[in-house]
């Protein structure tokens, strides 16, 4: 349920671009998702399949590249990749704690692969 509005928006973007470019269908939609974007890729795929039935994206493959979440230390300012279950700054002797940053919250459509195979 949580992923459905996002899947519907991805479909809308892809259909708009397919139409703009006179394509018969989209073969691939490539997403960028940060590890803290709050959406599950597998769930998104399921929702997308359901939303795309009967459209030019019915058999489109959803692919993804992930961005690891970065924190910024509240003492020394170092940015570092968040480890599971920990906010601790990795710099030796620092003892600071990482505050969330926007790196890892990305959620966008990077590119779409369109095809003209006469199927339309």
């Amino acid at each position: 349920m949580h992923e459905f509005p996002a899947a519907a928006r991805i479909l809308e973007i892809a259909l708009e671009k397919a139409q703009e470019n006179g394509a018969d269908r989209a073969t691939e939609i490539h997403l960028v998702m940060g590890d803290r974007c709050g959406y599950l890729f597998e769930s998104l795929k399921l929702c997308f399949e359901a939303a795309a039935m009967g459209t030019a994206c019915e058999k489109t493959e959803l692919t993804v590249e992930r961005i690891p979440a970065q924190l910024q230390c509240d003492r020394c300012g170092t940015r570092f990749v968040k480890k599971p279950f920990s906010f601790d700054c990795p710099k030796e002797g620092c003892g600071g704690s990482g505050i969330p940053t926007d790196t890892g919250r990305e959620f966008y459509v990077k590119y779409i692969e369109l095809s003209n195979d006469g199927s339309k």
Partner: protein
Amino acid sequence: MSTKVDIYENVLNQNERLAGEFNQKLSGDGVFFINILWSPGAGKTTCLLNLIPLLPQQSFVIEGDIESDIDTVKMRDSGIPAVQINTEGACHLETPQITSILPEFKEGFLFVENIGNLVCPAEFLIGEHIKLLIPTVVEGSDKPYKYPLAFEKADLILLNKIDLLPYVDFDIDYFSAGVRRLNPDAPILQVCGKTGQGFREAAEWILERSGKKYL
């Protein structure tokens, strides 16, 4: 023939645009919008019943629930205008649901009691000026560690049911440290919906943030 088309479009842009437009309209109409988040049973409605009479301008409440109009009836019984949204299963509210149900309302405070859930309501902007979190001492002090996003996005945190503190194993220091790791600024105020404790300070904070204090 196959063509690759670069897009670089944020999936949530459309929702954020709608939320931003609604937020600007409300600001223009003198309305300060508070989006209330927490799990079922935290006492969100009771906190509102304590808070609203302390504010110097009229309030309007939109109650979001999966089903029922129980909270809306409570508001109206207290003389507070309110409408109900039933999502019939959906886990969060989105901006168009708010804009389509809000009647003409100017110069005051709009409260939306979001669906009782710590995940999706934290993700979706609905045009609010602030997010108000209402965790309680009966849930355990590990919530900032388990549900970080809601705490990261919070502007004000009311720690409710503080009267039960002597009877539960709630570690306020552990809770506060977890909140501060995610959010350096949001005040954590201790309140009790049952007795009304702490709501004057909460109302003053909201008033100051709304800019209405100096009207």
